[in-house]
């Protein structure tokens, strides 16, 4: 039965046009020689050149990468623990509070998280003298906190799907629960942990609001740099920067997607083969 | 010839290069229970879906009550289906499920609808469960919701796709008879798809046996069982001993065959189209074979020894070595020997015999 409706396909087409035309326009205008960012004045790559010679941009990028790397790694460890805890330990004191704590940052407006983190760091410095200055450390701590819950959501979803019997089988064969965790559970959920890490990395790399609250003098991440520039209006070098970021991420996501798709197809083909050989 | 109630004429269905249904011709009479019997993947569901209107035939035509169904969408066909998975709407109560199709019946008042729903729930004995949700009832009850829902629309033709396959054995046997009685009371024509030959034999007035998209034979359960027209049908319905044979000549109303596997000649029931010298198959059902210690008088008698026996209580299955062949014989355990010993036991020499009327010659 054909269930493809012209209406749905038309909306799908317009929807994707809506999602991609602004990005494509930005890419096109990054090659615009005119200083007016939205009026075409001929082809040029000069904004890319000026970008690469801009030490501020490069410093900001490096700081962003450093924060993203550290925060996503710690967030992945903590988030994985939380995801496993929620999926496997159905009864412990304070579970309701815990599951609330793990979901709240997901839907919390960023302004609230940002402002409460900032006030917390200021008060903490007041009480215990730490953190002395805001910057790398405070940004990283805040990023860990709000990105770990994304990891735990992904890990939890994967854990709920996975077959508990294999863990019980391992215990039945003499493994202690924490050995089962390392020998069985973690390997099985490793793809989810990897996607969690990637997500945490991207969120950290992309964050403006929470970073803008928890940063201090001298610590400018790339989004903060862009933020301060775009507040003043549209400029062509931001177009160039945007193009580079979009193309890098786009290439990464497409490559990951293709690899996953291939692996999935191979798995299906293998299964079919195995099935046929059994006949 | 009078136009049958449902006529399927040369219907084929291809998915890409794969032909799921091949040139099916069937005629089903009004009020019949008609079974489509075949192994899984042989195209039964596809044929039903063409009747319900979910697939258009690649070739051929379907007539219901003389009306060509080509191009008629599912929602306008007076044909309803009980889906293999039951397809109960999970977000509606039992009652709402049963009443769903009645929303589309113009001229039916709210009260009329409620009355019809009540009547249907009564019919399938689900009255007490009217307000339940689908996940709060058992598999057997869900099956009856699906039945009531389809019957509520008072279809001309009801299609049942493996209606009992999801039920356990006890419930299945009970439900078979319930289905038959419901069909009798409502008078609706049923087409039942099944892969279970016993189910088809119990339920159906007539059976079409399908294999790889083709209909191999159509007939009453007796015809299909006693007079299969091919090796496939004989083997698919019940079990059978089958031997290669050559037609020698005719002997009165019977055929004389030479059967090397049995080491001699066999007198078998004549079939049209058999000619001397033709290679055919001889099929004999295990329960048609008599087994004894003394030599019988039947023309088809052979001696062998018991290789194997399986005791089921009321009957036993014997496997008897006869030359190179192993012959299965099924015998009712009517008596026991002195002191309760078995009359026929392992390694006993026995005589096997069968009537010419039980020896089926299969040309294809």
């Amino acid at each position, binding site marked *: 039965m054909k269930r493809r409706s012209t209406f749905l396909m038309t909306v799908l087409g317009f929807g994707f046009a*809506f999602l991609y035309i602004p990005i494509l326009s930005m890419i096109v205008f990054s090659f615009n020689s005119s200083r007016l960012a939205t009026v075409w004045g001929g082809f040029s790559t000069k904004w890319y050149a000026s970008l690469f010679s801009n030490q501020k941009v490069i410093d900001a990028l490096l700081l962003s990468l450093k924060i993203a790397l550290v925060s996503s790694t710690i967030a992945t460890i903590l988030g994985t623990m939380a995801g496993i805890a929620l999926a496997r330990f159905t009864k412990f004191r304070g579970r309701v509070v815990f599951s609330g704590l793990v979901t709240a940052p997901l839907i919390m407006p960023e302004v609230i998280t940002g402002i409460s983190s900032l006030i917390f760091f200021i008060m903490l410095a007041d009480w215990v003298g730490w953190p002395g200055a805001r910057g790398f450390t405070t940004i990283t701590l805040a990023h860990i906190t709000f990105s770990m819950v994304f990891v735990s959501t992904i890990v939890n979803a994967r854990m709920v799907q996975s077959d508990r019997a294999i863990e019980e089988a391992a215990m039945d064969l003499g493994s202690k629960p924490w050995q089962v965790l390392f020998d069985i559970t973690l390997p099985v959920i490793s793809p989810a942990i990897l996607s969690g890490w990637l997500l945490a990395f991207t969120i950290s790399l992309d964050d403006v609001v929470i970073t803008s609250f928890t940063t201090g003098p001298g610590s400018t991440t790339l989004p903060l740099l862009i933020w301060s520039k775009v507040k003043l209006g549209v400029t062509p070098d931001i177009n160039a920067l945007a193009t580079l970021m979009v193309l890098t991420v786009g290439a990464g996501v497409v490559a990951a997607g293709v690899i996953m798709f291939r692996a999935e197809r191979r798995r299906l083909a293998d299964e079919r083969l195995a099935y046929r050989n059994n006949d | 010839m009078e136009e049958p109630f449902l006529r399927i004429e040369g219907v084929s269905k291809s998915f890409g290069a794969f032909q799921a249904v091949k040139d099916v011709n069937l005629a089903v009479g009004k009020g019949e229970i008609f079974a489509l019997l075949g192994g899984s993947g042989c195209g039964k569901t596809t044929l039903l879906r063409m009747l319900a209107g979910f697939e258009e035939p690649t070739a051929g035509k379907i007539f219901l009550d003389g009306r060509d169904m080509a191009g008629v969408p599912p929602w306008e066909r007076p044909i309803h289906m009980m889906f293999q998975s039951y397809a109960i709407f999970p977000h509606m109560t039992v009652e709402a499920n049963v009443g769903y199709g009645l929303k589309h019946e113009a001229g039916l008042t709210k009260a009329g609808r409620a009355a019809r729903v009540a009547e249907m729930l009564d019919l399938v004995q689900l009255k007490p469960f009217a307000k339940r949700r689908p996940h709060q009832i058992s598999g057997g009850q869900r099956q009856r919701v699906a039945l009531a829902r389809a019957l509520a629309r008072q279809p001309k033709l009801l299609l049942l796709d493996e209606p009992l396959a999801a039920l356990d054995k006890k419930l299945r046997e009970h439900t078979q008879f319930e289905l038959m009685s419901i069909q009798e009371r409502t008078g609706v024509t049923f087409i039942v798809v099944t892969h279970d030959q016993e189910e088809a034999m119990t339920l159906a007035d007539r059976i079409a046996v399908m294999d790889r998209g083709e209909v191999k034979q159509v007939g009453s359960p007796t015809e299909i069982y006693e007079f299969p027209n091919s090796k496939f049908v004989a083997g698919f319905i019940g079990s059978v001993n089958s031997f290669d044979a050559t037609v020698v000549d005719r002997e009165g109303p019977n055929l004389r065959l030479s059967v090397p596997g049995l080491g001699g000649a066999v007198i078998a029931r004549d079939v049209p189209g058999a000619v001397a010298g033709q290679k055919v198959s001889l099929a004999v059902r295990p329960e048609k074979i008599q087994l004894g210690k003394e030599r019988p008088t039947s023309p088809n008698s052979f001696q062998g020894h018991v290789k194997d026996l399986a005791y089921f209580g009321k009957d036993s299955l014997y496997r008897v070595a006869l030359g190179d062949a192993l012959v299965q014989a099924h015998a009712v355990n009517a008596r026991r020997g002195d002191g309760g010993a078995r009359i026929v036991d392992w390694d006993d020499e026995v005589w096997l015999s069968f009537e010419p009327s039980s020896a089926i010659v299969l040309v294809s």
Partner: protein
Amino acid sequence: MSAGRFSRWFDRKGWAGLIIGAPYVWLLVFFFLPFLIVLSISLSTNTPTAPPFSFGGEHPVINPSAYVRILTDSLYVRAFLTSLFNAGVAALLCLLVGYPMALGLTRVSTTWRNVFLMLVILPFWTSFLLRVYAWMGLMGKNSWFNGLLTDAWNILVPMDWAVKSVPMMHSNFAVVLVMVYTYLPFMILPLYASLERLDPVLDEAAMDLGSRPAQVFRDVTLPQSVPGIIAGGMLVFIPAAGELVIPTLVGNASQPMIGRLISDEFGQARDWPMASAIAVALLVLMVVPTMLYSHFQAKAEGSK
């Protein structure tokens, strides 16, 4: 405690305590405690003379004056209403665009489905800030997009109404448009997830019972996708209502949204109690109901 007893304790209970405890403590310290501090500050007195980034007010005390102002000062009431309105319209538009898109995704072949899904997710991985920025370029007076809209407008309306360019930037319209643009994937993905789970046989069953495709949608598809609609709606509505970046960049400064207000009260007015009180109010108004809803939803699911 001897080593043996320790290891026995660890095998039975300790390891579980560690797995639960580490993230629990982390979230208590870095997420929950900050909140309690915000709550306490929202009830404290204000010292406008304090230097930036330090708090001079009295606390803990119970001083509800900030909350009283939220309820009485029209600036705050209007900001709340503007936020709820913009976020509500954005969520509704996302639903209207996202629903047919998600449904369309379930109707294409698996290969295309994977490609399309990737296209839906892709913008989500690229910078949020830059996606907002892309619209700043498009909506600006001199852009080709604005030019197209201007031409279309001038052709369609009488001469007297003709404009040089369509004033899109710095308006609620711009805020809603960019919100729809940036949050659309958050609507499509949960909708797709709930639509994809539906058994197509149910559609066929409804058709078999006499429903035309539009009725099948109304009776079978739509009711079963309600959880997806609610999930998508919350994922769009809540962050949109608290949005700071979009209104700052494309919004109307004279009609601030709550996010902007919190940031301004804190940074410019240095009124910590007020900023905190607005944050708490936003939380009580939206986040708490959402969490209660999903808690009871999960319970209802569990009892099935």
